[in-house]
């Protein structure tokens, strides 16, 4: 089944002012295969996708679909030739019904035959096993289902090539599985699927083949089963993996004796149930648990980001009251929010302005930081954190995700916090930057900063944290340290820690 070549992109070139985004990239998609497109941020994945969907015009190369040379000038062109894309952000109308979202914009008559559409939509949804009803308002469906409706629309448009761009970023495990089932069923119908994602496990779960890009060049195309995960990462970041594993040389020792920096008893907020928590100076610990287990809510309570409803907090032994973020900041606590697009960056402001923001807030707005001072700060952190930006005055919105994250990190480092909370600092950024951020966390700890680290990737937390607090269903169900810090033990605790709790 997977032998017939469906789509062939050859020697694709794309240049932007000053950058060669794609340099002679080849990509081949076969009928009925799920093909993962991998690479770090800036490797050229998005550019390649955008060339294929007509958002960008290529500067050289050729695209063949079903053996015929095609030119794609607009997303509309791409759709008409059978190339459909489902983006991470839902590109449907939440105020219309599911059926309308499947058919709008491609009706053949002036009249909208609702009954007819609803019947056909139900057939399609049923065939693909999508748990939505045609007359439902789309906005009432979960994000995962909305995404599936977008796929249903693409499928009904007789697409041969389906591009899924980071489709799983906002889905939980169950929803991801639903999506994968749908992908497999499409695959068996002969659709070629291009799957772009940051999650390595997911690539190994569904994909048949992997194409790796790096710095706008093709690294190679591999059969998934023949490429071990470690090698894939190595190919993506282009360096040997020793660094990854030997991040933490000496085991966690001294922290036990250091003074307790922060201590909370029965802390609760409008979003988090009461919990006890403490962290020592120079300690790196983490909250882990499945999505929705309450790990983010708990750290938000520490920072006062949600309405604090109870509990007592002390810092360095002295009782304090933290009910608002600014109070937390004055007590030396920094918080890097989970959703950097919403809670973190201010896209139109420059890198420099974004960096000095937290310091400015702490100083108060009547004591402005002088221009030369802020420029010096910005230059310093751009260098220290190796932020890739054209200049310090570049709007942060035009930086890649990983670099945006570094800017926000710089923002907090500038306030010289005693305690830094990092909520998913490495989500959606490339492996290389991830590694840099992990290293930075350990370096900060060495300098005496306490860090709480949250990540969806357990492996990453095991590498950085000396103590893990495990949460399930909004309760703390266990605490792991020392020799218990391994993937298996974490999984066990997440899955069923009750027995341990009773003791």
């Amino acid at each position: 089944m997977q032998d017939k070549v469906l789509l062939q992109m050859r020697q694709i070139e794309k240049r932007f002012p000053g950058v060669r985004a794609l340099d002679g990239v080849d990509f081949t998609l076969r009928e009925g295969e799920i093909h993962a497109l991998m690479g770090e941020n800036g490797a050229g994945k998005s550019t390649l996708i955008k060339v294929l969907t007509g958002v960008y015009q290529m500067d050289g190369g050729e695209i063949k679909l079903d053996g015929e040379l095609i030119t794609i000038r607009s997303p509309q062109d791409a759709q008409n030739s059978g190339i459909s894309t489902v983006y991470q952000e839902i590109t449907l109308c939440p105020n219309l019904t599911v059926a309308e979202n499947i058919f709008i914009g491609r009706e053949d008559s002036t009249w909208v035959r609702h009954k007819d559409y609803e019947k056909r939509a139900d057939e399609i949804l049923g065939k693909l096993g999508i748990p939505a009803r045609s007359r439902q308002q789309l906005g009432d469906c979960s994000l995962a289902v909305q995404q599936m409706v977008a796929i249903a629309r693409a499928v009904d448009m007789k697409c041969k090539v389906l591009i899924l761009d980071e489709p799983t970023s906002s889905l939980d495990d169950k929803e991801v599985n639903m999506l994968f089932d749908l992908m497999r069923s499409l695959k068996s119908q002969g659709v070629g699927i291009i799957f772009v994602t940051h999650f390595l496990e997911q690539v190994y779960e569904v994909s048949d083949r992997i194409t790796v890009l790096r710095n706008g060049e093709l690294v190679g195309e591999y059969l998934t089963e023949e490429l071990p995960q470690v090698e894939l990462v190595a190919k993506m970041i282009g360096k040997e993996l020793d660094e990854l594993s030997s991040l933490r040389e000496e085991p966690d020792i001294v922290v036990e004796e250091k003074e307790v920096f922060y201590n909370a008893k029965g802390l609760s907020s409008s979003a988090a149930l009461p919990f006890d928590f403490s962290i020592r100076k120079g300690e790196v610990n983490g909250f882990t648990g499945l999505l929705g287990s309450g790990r983010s809510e708990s750290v938000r309570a520490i920072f006062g980001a949600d309405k604090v409803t109870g509990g007592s907090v002390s810092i360095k032994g002295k009782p304090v009251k933290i009910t608002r973020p600014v109070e937390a900041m004055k007590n030396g606590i920094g918080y890097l929010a989970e959703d950097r697009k919403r809670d973190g960056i201010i896209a139109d402001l420059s890198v420099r302005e974004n960096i000095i923001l937290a310091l400015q807030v702490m100083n108060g707005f009547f004591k402005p930081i002088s221009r030369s001072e802020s420029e010096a700060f910005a230059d310093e952190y751009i260098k220290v954190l190796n932020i890739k930006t054209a200049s310090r005055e570049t709007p942060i919105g035009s930086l890649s995700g990983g670099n945006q994250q570094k800017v926000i990190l710089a923002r907090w480092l500038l306030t010289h916090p005693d305690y830094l909370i990092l909520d998913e600092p490495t989500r959606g950024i490339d492996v290389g930057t991830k590694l840099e951020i992990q290293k930075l966390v350990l370096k900060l700890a060495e300098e005496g900063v306490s860090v709480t680290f949250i990540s969806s990737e357990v492996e990453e937390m095991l590498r950085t944290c000396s103590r893990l607090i495990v949460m399930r269903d909004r309760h703390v169900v266990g605490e792991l340290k020392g020799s218990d810090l391994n993937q298996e033990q974490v999984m066990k605790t997440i899955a069923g820690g009750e027995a341990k709790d009773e003791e």
Partner: protein
Amino acid sequence: MNQKIGVRREPLTDTQLLMTITIFIFFGMYLLAMLLLGGGFLRAQQVFDMLNDNASLIIVSCGLTIVMIGGGIDISVGAVTSLVVMSCVLYLNGGGNIFVSILLALGIGLAFGLVHGFLISYLEIQPFIVTLAGMFFARGMTTILSVNPQKVAHEGFAKLRDVKIEIPWLGYVANNGNVVPARMELGVVIALVCLVLIFILLKFIKLGRAFYAIGGNQQSALMLGINVKRTRFISYVISGLLSGISGYVFMMHTGAGNATNAAGMEMNAIASSIIGGTLLTGGVGNVAGTFFGTMTLTTIKKIVVSSGLKEPWWQSITTGGMLCFFILLQSVVLGQRAKRKKS
């Protein structure tokens, strides 16, 4: 039909939900007025009066609803109505032809719609600014045409104006024993025809659904293959055209032109649309709701007057209060809905 394919009843869409709330509130309020205030509210003529007085408001509100569903705003509708009235009055008094006067009304409305639509859709200027300019322009033109009030003195028009639809069985017996039939003006028929046509447009025609799509999410609408610019353009053209019709209906109701005609009508129209369940953020709304929005607004004003608060400011204050109440209600209802979906 539903049973046949085994579809279970879906929860209402946002549009249906908000409209239902308005309809219930309208009937509840009217019923209360009948019970507590009695008098005129017990007569069918009360409803017909409300329609006669507000036919032109209903028409512009329909246009505004379309624009607002598409995520825009048109605050020129009152001023354009006024300009149409004045132009037609002067034209008719100059010995004009009825048929041509109708074309004149439509032409003026259409011209404003075309210019607004072009500036907003194709040059991408803020709709508020464009239609604000349109409003000042139309008001200014009206005053240039005539500062003094002008009465229509045209035989043909007088005949047209006096066309009244009489419904005897809905009438009432006056003090002197005569039966006074319920009277409805021609303008109301025009307004109801517009209402039905736009209802069909919004519900069953491709273009109508496209208004919802661009109001729901413009970027998505583009990706779904809708010509966003053209759709938005057409929404303003329809609104302009309806302002023209509204002007003519207004003239048939008052029989005179005045520079201050239809002052504040755009605001009443916006209020009607919002009370009827149209969201200012776009994508949600319905002209049936808008109709009941206008009626709700009018009823509350009548209630205020019947309660003995004759000064005009009381009506403004209650209108303001109503609007506040409905916006609050909408945001609470939709907020609850979003919450329920999350949990």
